[in-house]
């Protein structure tokens, strides 16, 4: 896998997108698929930044292309468990007054990715996102 570590900060997003987009461009992937992969990666990374404040370690992002799919693996070190493989309960038909942004990112990840997996190795969370190439 093609892997790089990113500082745990929203300021890393630009470098994170550059890393992903260079990889996708090298594999001829653009348009809607590229946008959805960017979105899913941002949502997971931003979640790590915002909800794992006790950890000071970098977040490692690895990319892999197979004939069938693009796989993104995010490893977050020294963090408490949070199983993102369970889709959140988001009522997409609720009235505006009942809407809030909480849970929306995870809902989008589950909507646009074909597989969302979560694993733990001691205090490391490993999130794997898979998008099949049509």
């Amino acid at each position, binding site marked *: 896998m093609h892997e790089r570590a990113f500082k745990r900060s929203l300021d890393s997003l630009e470098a994170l997108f550059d890393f992903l987009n260079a990889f996708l461009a090298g594999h001829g992937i653009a348009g809607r698929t590229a946008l959805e992969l960017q979105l899913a990666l941002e949502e997971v990374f*931003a979640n790590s930044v915002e909800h794992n404040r006790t950890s000071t370690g970098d977040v490692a992002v690895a990319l892999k292309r197979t004939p069938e799919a693009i796989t993104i693996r995010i490893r977050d070190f020294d963090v408490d468990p949070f199983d993102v493989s369970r889709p959140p309960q988001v009522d997409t038909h609720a009235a505006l007054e009942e809407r809030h942004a909480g849970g929306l990112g995870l809902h989008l990840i589950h909507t646009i990715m074909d597989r969302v997996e979560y694993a733990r190795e001691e205090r490391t969370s490993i999130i794997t996102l898979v998008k099949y190439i049509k």
Partner: protein
Amino acid sequence: MLKIERDEQGALLLAGRFDASQEESAMKAFNQVEQETEIDCSALEYISSAGIGVLIATQKRLMQKNGQLILKNLNPHIVEIFKYAGLDTVFTIK
């Protein structure tokens, strides 16, 4: 990077990428919106849940005053994201 500008007709122009790193500065800009306002999204390339959250918070605030945001010229990929989030029914999208 996200650019937010106001045109001569009072519409807000959004250009670039509305990601989580832009949320705080964008919220400040949207907090200045006090009435029904068109948002020209023709140069908006990308939006994530952080950007959508800013729009939702602004829409809620404006609707209490019978105002709203009107989103114009969204690219088809972004319209799809709004549909996935069920937000195509709570925003006017032109």
